[in-house]
């Protein structure tokens, strides 16, 4: 992506500290919303966001920040997987976005039951969520990787649809397990490991005996979920798409 200065040369009184600060952080804004950060800042952000995400589960922005600051190994991996797959490659080129302004909600709603489009809209309505609430990336220092994590976030709701999981704590944990296996993102792994902390014993048992093993098996068996051009598959029945990707039917 194009690099442009986010700050002009500081005419600060203490010019030394201003310049040093810029050298450390790499003063280029690589995409709108990008905040360049030093390694120390990333480490502090990772620790702080992990703590805050656990302390206040409503801070979804902290989960997002955690993903961005810890994804430096997993994201390039995902990007390469996409590059080496024909559909994934096209997604990287065309950069489709899933949001209310790009989706034709009326058309999707009119599709027959059981199709991806119809079930996705049903999922959004039942759980009262919108694709527009996904945080744009801020702390990823590569413009293409920023898109990869954005795509991962926007595809998350489709994961819920394909896995048949609701947006309550239990459903989210199951999806996190699936995503952890699929993406290797530390944020997913941490979410999968620590998410269950707030669940009741009965739910934990259900999680441990049925849901997690199924999520792991599916995650392992399935193709990379970022390599599917979902926008071209609205008419496809969910079951057929599941089979194609390799997700086992939900318990």
């Amino acid at each position, binding site marked *: 992506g194009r690099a442009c200065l986010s*700050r*002009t040369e*500081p*005419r*600060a*009184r*203490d010019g030394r*500290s*201003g310049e*040093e*600060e810029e050298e450390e952080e790499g003063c280029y804004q690589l995409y709108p919303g990008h*905040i360049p950060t*030093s390694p*120390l*800042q990333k480490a*502090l*952000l990772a620790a*702080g*966001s992990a*703590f*805050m995400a656990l302390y206040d589960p409503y*801070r979804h*922005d*902290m989960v997002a*920040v955690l993903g961005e600051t810890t994804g430096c190994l997993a994201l390039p991996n995902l990007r390469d997987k996409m590059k080496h797959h024909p559909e994934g490659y096209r997604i990287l080129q065309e950069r489709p976005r899933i949001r209310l302004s790009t989706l034709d909600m009326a058309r999707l709603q009119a599709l027959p039951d059981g199709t991806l489009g119809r079930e996705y809209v049903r999922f959004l309505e039942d759980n009262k969520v919108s694709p527009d609430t996904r945080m744009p990336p*801020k702390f990823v220092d590569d413009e293409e990787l920023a898109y990869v994590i954005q795509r991962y976030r926007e595809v998350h709701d489709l994961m819920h649809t394909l896995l048949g999981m609701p947006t309550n704590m239990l459903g989210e944990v199951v999806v996190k397990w699936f995503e952890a296996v699929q993406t290797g993102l530390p944020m997913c792994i941490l979410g999968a490991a620590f998410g269950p902390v707030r669940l009741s014993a009965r739910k934990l048992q259900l999680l441990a005996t049925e849901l997690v093993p199924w999520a792991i098996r599916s995650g392992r068996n399935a193709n990379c979920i970022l390599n599917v051009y979902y926008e071209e598959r609205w008419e496809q029945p969910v079951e057929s798409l599941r089979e194609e990707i390799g997700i086992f039917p939900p318990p």
Partner: protein
Amino acid sequence: SVRGLAAGPETHFGFQTVTEAERREKIYQVFESVAKKYDVMNDSMTLGIHRVWKDILVHKMNPSPGTLLLDVAGGTGDIAFRFINYVRSVRERQLQRKLKHHQNLSWQEISESYKEDKLKSLGDSQVVVCDINKEMLKVGKQKAQHLGYSEGLSWVLGNAEELPFDDDKFDVYTIAFGIRNVTRIDLALQEAYRVLKPGGRFLCLEFSHVSNPLLSRLYDLYSFQVIPVLGEVIAGDWKSYQYLVESIRRFPPQEELKAMIEDAGFFNVDYQNLNSGIVAIHSGFKL
């Protein structure tokens, strides 16, 4: 350039160069955004030490009952509440001393004089909190209600560069961690001079410059590496706190601010460094 002339004089917003109008707008937005988390962030960033700084300011002021204070950029009320507490405790001690001297009065006389004084638990002291930002005032008013402050307290929306008050009105003018955000500091100082009574005192509590090189490096490291992260984690707002640390670096150091205060007409201008210059209290008098 022509565009520059049309858009207005240039100034800084943190390390960026902007017009004065843009700066005012950006700063308004910063405080609108941080208002609700302002107090939490202050405690986190300074590990609670800002409370000590503000206590020192009010102790230095040493207000007696009957003082009329104008607290500019007073936002969430920290200085105002401390002023009220201080004056109240001074007043209580006054009353206690008075009672001791009246031990030969009858019960009736004592209880009557007590009732009279009860009505003036602040002894006619008053504080006016003036801030340019509606959100900050809102938070301040809510806090006052929550903490039980009502007597002797007023909230006014106003601009430090152009105060909505008449000349020669106040005994003390304070501005704590606010003057840094004013776009034309010279105008704010002139206004401070104008609204103070002759004999009135100007007090400014603000971040300043650390001359000790080792401490300065540690302070810079903490400011630039930790504070924006705290802003993101606690308030979900990196950029406002990045602005905060940059604006501190941009602000004139102790001697320069002293000269500016003298230029506005104040006498006996002096400053006191707190924590090696991380913060300084400047004081001046209108004669």
